[in-house]
């Protein structure tokens, strides 16, 4: 029996876009996505795909990527397939517009997970780079009654257990959990692999499974938001930088040191 691994991946607007492109529609409390800027798979979720693929590198495994949203850029969401994941399940419905409410997202993902069937391991990103919540995976784990381990930089399985090396503020921690379990991973896991040409070809042929709210056996009421946004705005930072100029760069360095001394900062 191959291991069944589910990866949770979210489509987000590119978090590294230039600041000037970032705009908020305050009235509707939404970020306006510039049409020229393609969305991306949340960075940590690419790490999650990579973590699953590394397991698959050493033993038989079936990797299913699950994503929930109102609409998707299919070519973007197929990236995990081109990296080597086996299948893609998209939970797509107009009712799924509130991706801000972690609990509702977790409900929908949990319904999909239960519909797909038994699994050994769920791998998610540590947080989505839009709302930086770091909540959805933990809520999914709670709804499914699973043990959870966060911020993994190395994920290994064996003997029905998962061993995770976690990145801690001042070192690492190794923890172990029985499976099924949920693990979230971070960028310390390392660079996700690039899709190969063969992978890209294979991904082109694969079609995602698309499920609506109804397919999941949910009604809108179960997805009522627990957290509501009452305001969304861009904070103003006042720029009053004093530029230190000298005859050349080296001179500016010297003057900077003198300036810090004068300001009693050193």
């Amino acid at each position, binding site marked *: 029996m191959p291991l069944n691994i589910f990866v949770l991946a979210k489509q987000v607007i590119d978090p590294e876009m230039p600041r000037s492109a970032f705009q908020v529609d305050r009235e509707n409390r939404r970020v306006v996505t510039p049409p020229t800027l393609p969305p991306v798979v949340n960075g940590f979720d690419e790490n999650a795909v990579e973590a699953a693929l590394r397991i698959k590198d050493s033993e038989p495994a079936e990797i299913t990527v699950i994503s929930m949203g109102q609409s998707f850029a299919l070519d973007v969401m197929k990236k995990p397939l081109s990296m080597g994941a086996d299948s893609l399940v998209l939970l797509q419905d107009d009712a799924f517009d509130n991706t801000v409410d*972690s609990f509702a997202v977790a409900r929908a993902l949990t319904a999909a997970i239960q519909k797909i069937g038994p699994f050994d391991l769920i791998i998610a990103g540590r947080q989505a780079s839009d*709302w930086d919540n770091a909540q959805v995976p933990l809520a999914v784990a709670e709804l499914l009654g699973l043990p959870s381990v966060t911020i993994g930089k190395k994920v290994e399985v064996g003997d029905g257990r998962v061993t995770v090396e976690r990145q801690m*503020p001042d070192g690492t921690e190794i923890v172990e959990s029985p499976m099924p379990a949920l693990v979230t991973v971070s960028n310390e896991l390392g660079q996700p692999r690039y899709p190969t040409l063969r992978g890209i070809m294979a991904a082109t042929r694969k079609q995602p499974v698309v499920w609506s709210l109804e397919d999941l056996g949910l009604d809108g009421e179960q997805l009522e938001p627990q957290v509501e946004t009452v305001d*969304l705005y861009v904070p103003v930072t006042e720029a009053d*930088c004093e530029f*230190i100029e000298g005859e050349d760069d080296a001179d500016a360095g010297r003057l900077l040191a003198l300036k810090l001394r004068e300001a009693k900062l050193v």
Partner: protein
Amino acid sequence: MADSAGVLVLAETEGGALSPTAAELVTAGLEVAAGLGLPLSVAMAGSDVEATVQEAASLGAQRVYAVEDGILSTDKPELLLEAWAQICRQTNPAVVLIARTTAGRDLAPRLAARLGVGLAQDCLEVKVDEDSGRMIAHRPVYGGNAMAAVVCNGTPQMACIRPKAYEPCEPDDSRTAEVVSLSITLDESMARVKLVERVAEESEGVRLESAKIVVAGGRGLGSPEPFKDLEVIAGLLGAGIGASRAAVDAGWVPPSWQIGLTGKTITPDLYITVAISGASQHMAGCSGSKVIVAVNKDAEANIFKEARYGVVGDWEKVMPSFTETLRELLS
């Protein structure tokens, strides 16, 4: 509810004492409690919480809940989670506050889901809206590019508060509190995740989180070697040393050096950045610095929008004379 905890601070404990974040949560909690006209309670659960009871009282809690159980240890977060859930169920708080520490960040979402309510994650400020009588939480989103004000609809309203967002409140030993001991049921089988090993990174320098001065480098340094030069500066100034995520991802410096949204939060008096562009996710971890200094060859770099002093130039030329001048000034 007459016996409600009101605003409940769930405090972490460390070796028989309250974690430093508890005093910050109490500052936030007292404001919310005053706004709601409710009492402030502090709850601790651990294997050794006796001494923390007076500590919590001295911070200004009107009521203190203490749960002592030998099987509660920091290595078993699932037990602490269940203890917190039982405390909440027994005390019916209107508001629950947790610190977004390494542990709190993971415990809070599971606790919220266990109680069937929402959670405002990573908040910088919590306030009571006079019209609705609900708590509004302000939190950075989109890597710090935007701020959101959010309201939790359920009860309790829960917020996870970023460490250092609030000043710790001053303890006063003459304060007293009503002490309530709760009995909860926990058993070992609830702890499924087991700690195998903890490896502390050896570090010689000053701790980043408490450093008065921090020096940090970014991708523009191009390789690990220039960090040696930054270490010289750090040595001269008695400063901590850090980096952007780009420098960490490149493998030039260890992850423990990372400052930012997913790294450390620093609040030094002086923060000197070299070849860091100042992405919002980086600034998220250092915008509490009193004075930011930036050396960057790009005059348009975002870092200059938040810096007090800046040099537009090549670090390879700027930093040696900066270092030499510092050495002379400090000798």
